[in-house]
């Protein structure tokens, strides 16, 4: 009858009266909940971000290597190619009946820490990401001249580049290069719109440009006295001898597996072909163990937070015997005392969970741009989902369950102490 509401109100006010220690308990639960939710959030967002990076491509072809390695360097610009594909092999592939389009990729150079990608106009036409989105220009247009460059949104923002500005492309991959191709100045021709993918962090040039900047280089070092001027370069035959990888679009997706087998068995040179979705799945299988480990650690941190709460409530019991006895003397039944302590645990956990969610969103709002910048992972701020609400319910439920222990002790105390207070 008059029970539950009264008890709940009393629990809240009793907690408020001890808000110093109560707040500490709430903080420790909040921190653990933030961690657990955050790990899961970053995990799913990272997956979504990776999955959004490439779409519409049916096969990725590169020199013979592990599937993951090929996926990582060709699409995510992580790691390096083990070997190249000859231009002739590429052309044979591109001319196959089932192939609708190809995007040749030539990697290996960098510009102030950003990867340089040599490619063809097919890239701007056929590359798809996040479903069916195409690359759009924020300013300028595609590569037209041998020394034109198109840069991603992050490159433009971080380096402050404008269309028309001359830049120097370096050989190798370091942020600071000791060997600059400083005699071949490129000009920024276009800036791409933000995509939330590694494209944002890439400097695009033509395949011929990659060939040109290496024209007077052999085995990675410059040959003295053989410098070639830009005008001489324009006159040269700059057909590439090799490329790093190829993105392939097919006329019919059903042909993917057949072509994949054909590429893998290609007699001319050792090649690998991967289907992006399948390779991504391999990646998830690989990192799945780490994810589970992280989740398990976070779950234990939550358990630690709840145990801290349990300790706090149990320690408070003795000094609160007076409070319990007063309640008994004004008519609280032993089960009221029981309910008081269980609702106290529930209230602490609930406040902890709410604060945990608030902290998570605050952190995500602050950290999302940093994560995107450093790792190219786009973390969207979305409303709590099924998983988040389940976690919230489990934490509060576990707290209520734990609250039974101090509640039982207070119940026993209430029965034995009666109305007199023996402290």
């Amino acid at each position: 009858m008059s029970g539950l509401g009264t008890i709940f109100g009393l629990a809240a006010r009793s907690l408020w009266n001890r808000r110093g220690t109560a707040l500490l308990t709430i903080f420790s639960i909040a921190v653990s909940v933030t961690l657990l939710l955050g790990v899961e959030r970053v995990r799913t967002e990272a997956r979504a971000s990776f999955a959004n990076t490439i779409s519409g491509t049916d096969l990725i072809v590169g020199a013979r290597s592990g599937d993951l390695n090929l996926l990582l360097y060709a699409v995510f610009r992580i790691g390096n190619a083990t070997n190249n594909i000859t231009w002739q092999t590429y052309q044979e592939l591109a001319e196959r009946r089932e192939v609708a389009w190809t995007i040749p990729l030539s990697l290996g150079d960098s510009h102030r820490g950003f990867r340089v990608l040599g490619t063809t106009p097919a890239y701007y036409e056929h590359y798809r990401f996040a479903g069916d989105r195409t690359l759009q220009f924020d300013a300028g247009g595609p590569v037209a001249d041998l020394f034109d460059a198109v840069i991603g949104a992050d490159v433009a923002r971080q380096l402050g580049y404008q269309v028309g500005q001359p830049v120097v492309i370096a050989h190798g991959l370091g942020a600071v290069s000791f060997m600059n191709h400083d005699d071949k100045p490129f000009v920024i021709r276009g800036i791409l719109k933000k995509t939330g993918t590694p494209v944002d962090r890439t400097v695009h040039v033509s395949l011929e440009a990659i060939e040109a900047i290496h024209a007077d280089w052999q085995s990675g070092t410059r040959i003295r006295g053989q410098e070639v001027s830009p005008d001489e370069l324009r006159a040269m035959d700059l057909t590439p001898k090799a490329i790093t990888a190829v993105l392939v679009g097919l006329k019919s997706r059903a042909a993917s597996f057949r072509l994949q087998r054909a590429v893998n068995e290609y007699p001319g040179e050792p090649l690998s072909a991967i289907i992006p979705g399948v390779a991504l799945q391999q990646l998830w299988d690989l990192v799945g163990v780490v994810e589970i480990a992280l989740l398990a650690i976070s779950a234990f941190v939550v358990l630690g937070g709840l145990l801290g709460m349990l300790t706090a409530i149990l320690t408070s019991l003795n000094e609160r015997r007076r409070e319990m006895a007063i309640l008994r003397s004004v008519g609280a039944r032993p089960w009221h005392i029981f309910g008081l302590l269980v609702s106290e645990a529930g209230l602490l956990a609930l406040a902890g969970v709410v604060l945990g969610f608030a902290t998570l969103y605050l952190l995500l709002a602050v950290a999302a741009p940093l994560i995107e910048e450093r790792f190219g992972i786009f973390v969207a701020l979305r409303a709590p989902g099924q998983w988040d609400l389940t976690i919230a319910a489990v934490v509060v439920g576990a707290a209520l369950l734990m609250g039974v222990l101090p509640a039982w002790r207070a119940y026993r105390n209430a029965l034995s102490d009666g109305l007199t207070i023996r402290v």
Partner: protein
Amino acid sequence: MSAVELRDVVFGWGRGKPLLDIARLEVAPGERVFISGPSGSGKSTLLGLIGGVLTPGRGTVRVLGESLGELSSARRDALRVDRIGFIFQMFNLLPYLSVRDNVALPCRFSARRRARALTEATDIRTEAERLLGHLGLSDPALLDRRVTELSIGQQQRVAAARALIGRPELVIADEPTSSLDADARADFIALLMSECTAAGSAIVFVSHDRSLAGQFDRQLDLLELNAPARPAAA
């Protein structure tokens, strides 16, 4: 029907000589009884027996017509909540509730007390304020203050108002004046008595301070009442 009736009640903690052995004790409805005895003479134990918190080894305790030994613990709880008001020596009030909320507490746990309080006033707040006013705590600023900001004398008057809300038939007071100074003590007793009379409540008032005894209908000495304490029985 007596307010309190003890017959051949024996109570002891563990084995050995019992602490209490009372052949007969009766309190009539509305009667105001003062029970004196030095500390350690079993005053609190006696109140525990009447309150139904302790169960005697032998004998019967009847409170307001109910034989406590025959009631389940839930029924004893209900009897205590619905029909008895308690005032203790100190630490009576919950520090996290306002004065007014402290007084209203019994009405939250007992529908009977609530119903009876509402025959006096239109709502519990008003009734709590009325009782506090009668006990000399009518300052409105005081009502919403935290109880820890009150003097001990004021706190005990709040405790009395709480014991009296909803007109319980029996009020049990355990040394409620021992932390008050002499003037406050006399005031407090006078207010308590007149309110008990107004509510029609019997009062069992236990104290070691015999100087208060004169204001009661009847005075009992626990040393005489209790067989193990009597010199003749030793």
